């Protein structure tokens, strides 16, 4: 038996061409879709209607042209955040159960008693643009996040947003998750998000 001939080398020169072809195919078909947004829970259809006192309601109306009315007074979009924070964090109740010991608001008598009682009522008209609606929704979430971050920083020395991000990360281990879950609950109880929506006839 003679020496075995070594196998002939495969020419790999066209490999690049093939890879390029595939690359271009994937480049063309790729659509990097957005997968972020604002989460909301809709109210149940047969939900209970609770009567609220006038002072605990902040009504925000978005007009057809995107103009904002807060408690029937016109306001610029830039001021909305501060107005909402002032309203939620007011802590107007002086004594009793509703007294809010962590609120840093001005404790005025015409704004909310307690963050857990404060309700934001968002009203739109049929012709209001969706963009304006999302802008306002975004500001409302921002207001809650500001307050929640503040309390999280005070109590747990970290921000609410960070805790939430770590909690949602699937790689976080169980014990950390449990701890974070408790902390997040504490914060959410201090500033529960009460956003109600109404459709206005007009």
């Amino acid at each position, binding site marked *: 038996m003679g020496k075995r001939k070594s196998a002939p080398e495969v020419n*790999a020169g066209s*490999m*690049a061409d093939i*890879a*390029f072809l*595939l*690359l271009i195919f*994937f*480049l063309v*078909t*790729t*659509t*990097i*879709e*957005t*997968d*972020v*947004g*604002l*989460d*909301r*829970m*809709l*109210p*149940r*259809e047969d939900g209970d209607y609770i009567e609220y006192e006038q002072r605990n309601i902040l009504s925000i109306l*978005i007009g057809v042209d*995107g103009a904002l009315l807060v408690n029937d007074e016109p306001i610029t*979009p*830039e001021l909305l955040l501060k107005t909402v924070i002032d309203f939620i964090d007011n802590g107007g109740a002086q004594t009793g159960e509703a007294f809010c010991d962590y609120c840093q608001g001005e404790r005025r008598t015409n704004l909310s008693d307690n963050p857990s009682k404060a309700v934001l009522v968002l009203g*739109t*008209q*049929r*012709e*209001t*643009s*969706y*963009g*304006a*609606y*999302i*802008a306002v*929704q*975004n*500001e409302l*979430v*921002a207001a809650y*996040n500001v307050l929640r971050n503040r309390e999280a920083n005070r109590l747990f020395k970290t921000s609410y947003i960070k805790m*939430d991000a770590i909690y*949602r990360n699937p790689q976080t281990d169980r014990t950390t998750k449990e701890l974070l879950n408790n902390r997040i609950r504490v914060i959410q109880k201090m500033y529960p998000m009460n956003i109600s*929506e109404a*459709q206005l006839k007009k």
Partner: protein
Amino acid sequence: MSKFSKKKSGEVPAVSTASLPDIVFMLLFFFMTVTVMKDNSLKVENILPNANEIKKLDKKDRVIYIYVGKPSKEYEKVYGTEPKIQLNDKFSDPSEVGSYILQERAKKHQDLQNFLTTSLKVDKNANMGLISDIKSELRKVNALKVNYTTYEGDAFRNLQ
């Protein structure tokens, strides 16, 4: 005369392209992994609004999508320019949203059926009337978890 002429000293050696396939393959794998094949072609204009207080959407198998927007150019003649709802591959009325959600919910795995999110991909120029109609339909079938899907960005740009 020498048989082997000396190379000119100034000549630059050719660049080796042997690693080119490797680089291309690397790119290829990147695009292969990030690619999301489109399940349904959009028939509506869909420029989402911007927001910055956003949260990531759930995994894809737990999400039902509803698209809203003006019919795109080629459908304008048939369907007009008023914003429409697109469910799967066809234009629909608000009244069809409920049955669509139930139908999609039935398709999902049983364990996931209670954890579904409805992602509203709505063009920023759509009007709220249609959205409220959709929301009241969603409430009727108890699909309460919604996500207003947006791009990441400054929310005030929506107002302009």
